[in-house]
């Protein structure tokens, strides 16, 4: 492990990216040491390239000097994916923030990896087009990071996740080779699907520099409705019934009692305090009457399953307020305790009620507060274990509870992560989910693409010693 770069190497980085775009001051190293988890480490330096050629040159230098490289977009990840371990060099892409093309005929957008998700959405929507993946971090996260972690969002129920929209990629391999894969066409059965390989690879196989994304026509109408429940079981039963009814809402979001309270403390959005759970539905389409009718059907189903209140947002402003509130949930939970461990399990829809029950049972058994919210319609839940890292006794319980939540998800046929990735947070648990054969295959791919092991070391794959990610500083 290196703790600082040789002046000669720093000099070469400056030649590549320009002196102002190479940072080595201690303050900069502190500021690039984290993402949106609690992990912190210190990189050896930070380089902010502006072009693919510069990225490739940084890779060649890193390969020659055996320097670990961590690609980083906005550092808003929730799995520790961009935290720089083992004296890594941060390769930050925010300067690569241009939307290169919006092609209305082929319905694709070509962007550099540092383009902010919301900026892309605004740009395409002004032309009547639509980029559905909407992680809650859409205002601050960049497309490059979205692809690297295969981000999801509320609309994924109807529209799918980031990977489903990636039709072409420009990738810089660890040794600096530039690979372009895919194109503007929507179908492509030629060879291995490298786009799928890199979506969710968390920067362990190279740096993504340019992304071509599929776009849809923007639905003309979107309506939001809310249903409140006195028992969370009624809410999850409603989700199952809605999905069994043949309807396909854009989103079905769940927020439990504690989540509702944190949201209302942050920015009152009119959620019914005191309910055990609320569901937030979005229905979209091109025919207003059909959208309204579907929403009415959903409200009927909710009422039939014990909803204490159903309400349709009266205006676009009210609807926007509800969705802003929903997106702010994860950080708003921090108002309760100094830290939180945000989980991201995903189970088959049929098991969602059982998963919620098991989370509540685990919370009770370990005497922890675990608010649950998430994309109930696609089975993706975010139990967040509220905690204080300074309390050692509590952290022992937090770790045990986290493990049990993972085990429960896997036992129900689900997975560790629906949309945040594995990163550091869940690497000790990955084998539990994918099994040794699949993990072995993943490792062989990693070793083949990155034989020197310089790309984002310490992520995804468990530590041989079995040390727990909770032990990190």
């Amino acid at each position, binding site marked *: 492990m290196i703790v600082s770069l040789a002046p000669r190497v720093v000099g070469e980085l400056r030649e590549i990216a320009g002196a102002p775009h190479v940072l080595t001051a201690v303050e900069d190293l*502190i*500021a690039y040491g*984290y993402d*949106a988890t609690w992990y912190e480490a210190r990189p050896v330096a930070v380089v902010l390239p502006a072009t693919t050629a510069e990225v490739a040159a940084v890779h060649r230098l890193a390969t020659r000097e055996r320097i670990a490289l961590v690609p980083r977009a906005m*550092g808003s990840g929730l799995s520790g994916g961009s935290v720089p371990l083992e004296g890594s060099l941060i390769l*930050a892409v925010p300067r690569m923030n241009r939307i290169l093309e919006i092609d209305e005929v082929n319905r694709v957008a070509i962007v550099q990896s540092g383009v902010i998700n919301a900026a892309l959405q605004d740009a395409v929507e002004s032309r009547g087009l639509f980029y559905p993946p909407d992680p809650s971090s859409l*205002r*601050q996260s960049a497309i490059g990071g979205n692809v690297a972690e295969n981000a999801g969002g509320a609309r994924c129920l109807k529209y799918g996740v980031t990977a489903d929209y990636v039709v072409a990629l420009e990738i810089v391999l660890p040794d600096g080779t530039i690979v372009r894969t895919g194109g503007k066409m929507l179908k492509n059965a030629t060879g291995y699907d490298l786009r799928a390989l890199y979506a969710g690879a968390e920067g362990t196989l190279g740096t993504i520099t340019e992304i071509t994304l599929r776009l849809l026509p923007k639905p003309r109408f979107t309506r939001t409705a809310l249903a409140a429940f006195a028992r969370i079981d009624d809410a999850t039963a409603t989700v199952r019934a809605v999905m069994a009814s043949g309807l396909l809402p854009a989103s079905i979001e769940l927020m439990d009692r504690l989540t509702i309270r944190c949201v209302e403390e*942050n920015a009152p959005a009119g959620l019914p305090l005191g309910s055990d759970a609320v569901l937030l539905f979005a229905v979209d389409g091109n025919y207003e009457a059909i959208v309204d009718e579907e929403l009415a059907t959903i409200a009927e189903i909710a009422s039939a399953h014990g909803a204490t209140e159903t309400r349709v947002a009266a205006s676009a402003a009210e609807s926007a307020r509800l969705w802003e509130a929903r997106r702010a949930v994860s950080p708003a939970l921090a108002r309760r305790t100094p830290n939180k461990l945000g989980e991201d399990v995903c189970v088959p829809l049929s098991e969602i009620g059982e998963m919620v029950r098991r989370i509540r049972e685990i919370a009770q058994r370990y005497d922890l507060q675990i608010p649950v919210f998430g994309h109930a319609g696609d089975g993706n839940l975010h139990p967040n274990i509220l905690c204080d890292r300074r309390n050692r006794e509590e952290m022992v319980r937090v770790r045990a509870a986290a493990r049990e939540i993972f085990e429960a998800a896997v036992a129900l046929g689900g997975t560790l992560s629906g949309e945040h990735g594995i990163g550091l947070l869940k690497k000790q648990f990955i084998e539990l989910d994918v099994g040794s054969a699949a993990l072995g295959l993943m490792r062989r791919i990693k070793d083949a693409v990155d034989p020197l092991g310089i790309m984002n070391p310490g992520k995804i794959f468990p530590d041989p010693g079995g040390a727990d990610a909770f032990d990190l500083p």
Partner: protein
Amino acid sequence: MEFVETKLGFQEPDVPPESVFNQCVRCGLCLPTCPTYVETLVETSGPRGRIALIKAVSEGRLDLTSPGFMHQMSECLDCRACEAVCPSGVAYGRLLEPARTQIERATAERRPLFARLVRGFALGMLFSNMALMRFAAALLRFYQRSGLRRFAHESGLLRGLNLESLEALAPAMSRRFFVPSGELRRTTHGVSKATAFMHAGCVMHVAFAEVDEATVRVLTRCGCDVVTPRDQGCCGAIAVHAGEMELGRKLAKRNIESFERSGADVYVVNAAGCGSTLKEYGHLFEADTAWSERASAFSAKVRDVTEFLDAIGIAPELGRIDGVVTYQEPCHLAHAQRITAAPRRLLASIPGLILREMDESSLCCGSAGIYNVTQPEMAGRLQERKVANIVAVDPAFVATANPGCALQVAAGIRKAGRAIEVKHIVELLDEAYAAYKPTSRASSARAASTLA
């Protein structure tokens, strides 16, 4: 053997509270709202990075006087845009201001004597004594309006004394100052709805006296009695932002006492920067139980003039002002006080005036108190960005609600060679009231009733 370097940390009093910085979960939502982040795209120059640095100093991992830390605490505009969007509720201003105070205390003796004297004089004398400020302003006015200024420029005297940039920053002084007289001005229309304490301001009353006068006219026109006590003074914002908390507290006490003695119902301010400081007096006295209650009670009565007018409802007899207006949101109104709708409603109520929104209307223009002096390069970049956004909507007027913004935007527009007028919202209202003629509908209604 291990060598452990001791780092200079924060010292009581005025330590950035751990409970505040620990609330940051580093989600990064603040980054795209931060003017210095969007200009640099460097994490360290964003709120999340700055909070991480404050935490590092607090935990002994970074020296308080390290160059990067001092630079970041100075480069931050204290615009509070981050605070307004933070879902975790991090009160960023309550970290930055004490951090600056800490740096100020630790480095004061390192500054050159002359700089220390100038700073001491400006903060300790000018902003503390309004009569003295008026005297200095009168000198400045003489300098600006007589031939002296031209002489200073042409002779190279300013350049010689290295005062060129400082001189350019001094706002043009008003022809007549707005001197608090202590008298009560009765409402000109109907029964009084409330008695308003008029905050005359420090810079406002000598450089924007016409805005103060317009404020009194509009308030009395809209049904308020207005009192302007003589014993009021500067709100202390300049001192607090510069890290002079003690002086800030001294100035705060004076205003609190003045308001308490006045018996007014509400404390009205027409400068957004002052308003946000006045509304946060409670925080200044957190460690002083005797004063904290009085300060909080005072703060609860403070209203920005746009907020107040919007709440009481303005008199409807507004004349026409034809043209497009765009609204430059003062950071300390939009972010620190979260007032965004009231100013727009007031502008929209003026007949003939078309409100056209610019891009990034709430991104700081780079004025930010004395930021022009401390960070001229970044201030210039943000000014250019702002002017480009203004020019893109091609307005006749830029409306704002803070003197710093008005100066910065006007200077930027001049530099760009554009003819766009910069006005306080209250000035536009005042002009609209002056332009009022009974409308044809009103007069035809009268005609109709005569006929009947």
